């Protein structure tokens, strides 16, 4: 996904001289090397100094540039949190804060590198927008949108590498609208980000059991498509939320709030990371499983 981000950003930057990238000793792979060699004055490496990374991005935006601040999610959002809040959100500047390897993608690196509550943290700040694409193609769409928008700050939550393409034949991507990757009539799975691949496996399994299943990428977490989610809650007999995020403040919690608001009568099952730091140093899937997020467990719970 980070390669897709780099390629999309390179394309946008080639057409728009106001696009800058500020990184903290972490560089996106792939096309970012082209970006830094072709536009060295617009590729700014501040070193291991994330507070300064956000402040410098704010200063660039105050002079009408369109900056992206890029590093691993924990360091782009948590370390410089007050700079994100005051410099970007309070001033409502069109800076994209890229959280790479979000969720528990960096499974073996331990809790210091896991951003399992980032949607809740970023979503609590006024003016912040949040986009979390599910695959490389959706990441390119989201990156292009971030490069062109002037509404305000964005937290762009992306994965790392190796995510399968799932949106090749999907309906068009629209900021702020849930996007159906497949449509059925019995069950609707709402998900976003890297874990969408697991959600697709759950959908496949339910279909093999004879159910007609919808799968939707809720790529925009703020502003959340409340109408789209409400419609899903009204339309389907069963709605399942699968997300790689803490139980508080993410899609699961907000879907339950919407369900209450619209007096939903469907069955609503939510699957999230646990509210816990889990010390499991296996693969990404191993750590998700330790949190209770595996196709087998989800299928056993939704039957």
């Amino acid at each position, binding site marked *: 996904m980070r390669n897709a981000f780099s390629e999309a950003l390179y394309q946008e930057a080639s057409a728009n001289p106001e696009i800058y990238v500020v990184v903290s000793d972490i560089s996106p792979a792939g096309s970012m090397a082209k970006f830094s060699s072709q536009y060295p004055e617009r590729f700014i490496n501040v070193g291991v100094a994330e*507070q*300064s990374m956000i402040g410098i991005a704010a200063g*660039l935006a105050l002079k009408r540039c369109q900056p992206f601040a890029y590093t691993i999610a924990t360091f782009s959002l948590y370390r410089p949190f*007050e*700079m994100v809040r*005051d410099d970007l959100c309070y*001033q409502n500047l069109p800076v994209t804060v890229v959280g790479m390897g979000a969720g528990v993608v960096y499974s073996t690196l331990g809790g210091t590198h896991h951003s399992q509550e980032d949607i809740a943290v970023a979503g609590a700040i006024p003016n912040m927008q949040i986009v979390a694409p599910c695959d490389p193609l959706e990441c390119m769409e989201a990156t292009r949108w971030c490069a062109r928008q002037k509404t305000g700050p964005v937290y762009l939550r992306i994965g790392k590498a190796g995510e399968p393409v799932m949106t090749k034949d999907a309906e068009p991507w629209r900021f702020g609208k849930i996007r159906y990757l497949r449509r059925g009539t019995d069950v609707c799975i709402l998900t976003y980000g890297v874990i969408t691949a697991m959600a697709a496996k759950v959908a496949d399994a339910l279909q093999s059991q004879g159910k007609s299943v919808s799968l939707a990428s809720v790529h925009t977490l703020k502003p959340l498509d409340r109408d789209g989610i409400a419609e899903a809650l009204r339309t389907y007999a069963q709605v399942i939320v699968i997300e790689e995020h803490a139980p508080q403040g993410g899609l699961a919690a907000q879907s339950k709030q919407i369900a209450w608001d619209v007096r939903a009568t469907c069955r609503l099952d939510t699957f999230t990371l646990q509210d816990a730091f889990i010390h499991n140093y296996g693969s990404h899937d191993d750590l998700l499983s330790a949190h209770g997020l595996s196709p087998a467990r989800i299928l056993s719970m939704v039957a």
Partner: protein
Amino acid sequence: MIGPLLNSEMDNVMAMRPNSFDASAAVARCKRYRRRILDMSQRVSALHIAGAFSCTEIVDCIYNTLMRPGPPSEPSPDTFLMSKGHGCMIQYVILEDRGVLSAAALDAYCTPGGQLGVHPDYGNPGIEASTGSLGHGLSMAVGMTLAERGHGRDGIVYVVLSDGELQEGSTWEAVLMASSFRLGNLVAFVDNNDFQSLGRTSQTHPSFYPLTDKFTAFGWETVEVDGHDAGAIHQAVLARGGDRPLMVVARTTKGKGVSYMENVPIWHYRSPSPEEYQVAIKEVEARQ
């Protein structure tokens, strides 16, 4: 990675305002500004008078003698950022004096319908960045200076820091980057009044000194001046080399100009009573 130093960044050092500093005019302006702040203090219960008085000459010098005028009806090509946001009373009264902020806006300071609060807010006329939380301004100033360079412009970015905010680690991230990027168009000032909420900085943080050596070690051009001598401030900036950022360490007195406020911590955030106000006005008017 950084771009090469632009020729324009060197040239602008020569293109700055001519060295025609009028000391008596500066004293008269600063007297007027302090009086205006004291007048405002009689309408609100609390405001940061002492912190504004300690950087009065610095901010006056920046706005009125260093920042270049822009084309007719356009702003200066240069930028001022008040990193010590709590000192923005002096910024407000100077912006009023220069016709950027209205008298009505200042009269409505800290009132429900007003637009001006205790800290400067981006979006208000003449306010280039929101500050208030310490340790943010220098990074934003670095970003602004990089943008000027990226746009091929020679705008100079002036930023005023408090000595207290030099204790923020984020400030030192920006100090390191500004010189690494060779930002010759960044001019920073430390309002070195030796006071913060819990006492004298020289007593609580003796390792803080000497200040200039630290900035020199980080690759900045540094100069130390009397922060209440506007002519000395002006000359220090004019004399800068322009190939790297300049840090002007300004020795100042918190509450400067009113004897009972000078170096007395309570005046960080208190308004004088009507009787105290009369004494303050007399002292300010008497100052040469």
